[in-house]
């Protein structure tokens, strides 16, 4: 048993950032134990992503290819990777903690009498894997004690993708044996959630505007910020009451309850009716000129200042960051 396998995931024809972060975690494990790192790509035709992976400092790239892997299925991926791991017998298999990995990796590990240590945020000497418990209120340290490979998936953003050096690796092919009958599920094409109605509830990013905007004519500066972020625009009740934005965009006790990854509150003081609608957001940013505004009580980040100056500056900064 030797080597670290990092399974990279394709996203829109390229390898996603979180997969590079997984690779960074794999390299950290490899550095701890002085082992080689293999990048694993998987699909029906993996040439372009294999080439992409080969530009990084890895020992080799393994292309797991089979026509039945054209679309992701839990059965297909589990069978293929099981065969690969049996053959390679690495000491650890590292995944990005994506929805797809969560769908098959636990079964893959269980098939080998192993357990996935999932959603890892840090790896210490030992190795000791740190993951969040009780929704981030505690951190738990885990050790792997099985006889087989250690399965690990890492949380988005926990490791620095830009720390990986470039290199040029050889690619090898691995063709698993899969029978069509072994794939029991039939996946459909991905589709976007219904675009007709505003579904703030499932929006990952929300920019919300309140009374501080003063007039309907000032709304475009907030709209521009939302567009730059790729966020939905929402509002507190007074804005919708005035008819400046439709009622369906109202967040709060008489509107919608939202829990996005980012809730950016612009000119919202934070009345309780509003707070109850957005308190579940992962990260709350507040921009308000009143330093005593209650919204700052619930915010993770706050900027005390004139929104008419801060918002355009923020729009520019986001555009610049997104390049």
């Amino acid at each position: 048993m030797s080597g670290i396998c990092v399974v990279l995931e394709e996203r829109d024809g390229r390898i996603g950032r979180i997969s590079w972060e997984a690779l960074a975690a794999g390299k950290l494990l490899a550095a701890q134990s002085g082992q080689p790192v293999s990048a694993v790509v998987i699909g029906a035709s993996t040439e372009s992503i294999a080439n992409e992976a080969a530009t990084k400092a890895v020992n080799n790239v393994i292309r797991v290819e089979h026509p039945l892997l054209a679309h992701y299925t839990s059965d297909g991926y589990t069978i293929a990777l099981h065969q690969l791991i049996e053959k390679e017998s690495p000491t650890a298999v590292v995944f990005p903690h994506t929805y797809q990995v969560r769908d098959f990796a636990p079964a893959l590990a269980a098939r080998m009498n192993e357990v996935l240590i999932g959603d890892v945020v840090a790896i210490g000497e030992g190795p000791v894997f740190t993951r969040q418990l009780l929704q981030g209120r505690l951190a738990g340290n885990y050790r792997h004690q099985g006889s087989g490979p250690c399965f690990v998936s890492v949380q988005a953003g926990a490791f620095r993708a830009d720390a990986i050096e470039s290199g040029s690796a050889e690619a090898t092919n691995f063709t698993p044996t899969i029978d069509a009958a072994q794939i029991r599920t039939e996946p459909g094409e991905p589709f976007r959630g219904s675009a007709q109605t505003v579904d703030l509830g499932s929006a990952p990013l929300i920019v919300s505007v309140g009374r501080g905007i003063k007039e309907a004519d000032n709304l475009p500066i907030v709209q521009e910020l939302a567009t730059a972020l790729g966020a939905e625009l929402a509002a507190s009740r007074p804005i919708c009451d005035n008819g400046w934005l439709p009622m369906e965009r109202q967040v709060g006790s008489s509107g919608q309850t939202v829990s996005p990854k980012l809730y950016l509150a612009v000119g919202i003081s934070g009345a309780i009716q509003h707070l109850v609608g957005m308190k579940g957001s992962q990260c709350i940013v507040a921009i308000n000129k009143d330093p005593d505004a209650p919204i700052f009580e619930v915010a993770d980040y706050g900027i005390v200042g004139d929104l008419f100056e801060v918002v355009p500056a923020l729009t520019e900064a986001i555009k610049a960051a997104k390049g």
Partner: protein
Amino acid sequence: MKIIVAIKQVPERDAHIRIDSSGKWIEESDVQYAMNESDAYALEEALQLREKHSGEVIVVSAGPERVGTTIREALAKGADRAIHIDCNDLNQRDALGVARLIADAIRPDNADLILTGLQSDDLGYGQTGVILAELLGVPHATLILHVEKTDAGLKVKRELEAGFFQEIELPLPAALTIQSGGNKLRYATLMGIKKAKTKEMRVVTAAALDGAPVAVLDGIAHPKKQRSTQIIPGDAKQAAATLVEKLKFEARIL
């Protein structure tokens, strides 16, 4: 359709958390417990399927005696009967160990469908449903928001990342992990709790822990930084730049 729903009792979201003397788990005495949120959605999905297609809903839950209150809540909301896996060392078992307990307890029922919540609010492994499927040899799908019964089996709506969804068809028997928010939860009623008194709750004793688990929880700690508000200084331009930097590398959102 015979549906089994695996539910877990977890500390209330609001619970005050203190680490116990072993340093491996929380002080349980001053914590109040509730049904895990996504499990409540799994139960709701099961009840709605039974209302549409008739059949039976059986809840299964592993844990110490206190788990009985959560089981009764599930019975009050409409589950037909329950299996309580009496187990005092749940936190020391890894996801595979717990899934094995549940698989052993429910295997004799030969259910058509096994539902679990996506993830527990305490340990958050998010694996029980998937491993159950593996152990019972049935197909599965995860992050499910909507379940529809078809002639061939099921058509389910799965949540993908970045606002996308996908439909998956799979034959029965099957296992699904249910994402929160797909349905509206029903509330527990007085009538339900009275009816629950007469429903069957079978208690099975968990097999003793067989050696050490594969993944060992060595210790828990409070994370270094509690959530607090960072007021970002500087003029508009500086503050904006700092904020973007923080959203990118600290909050990891952008």
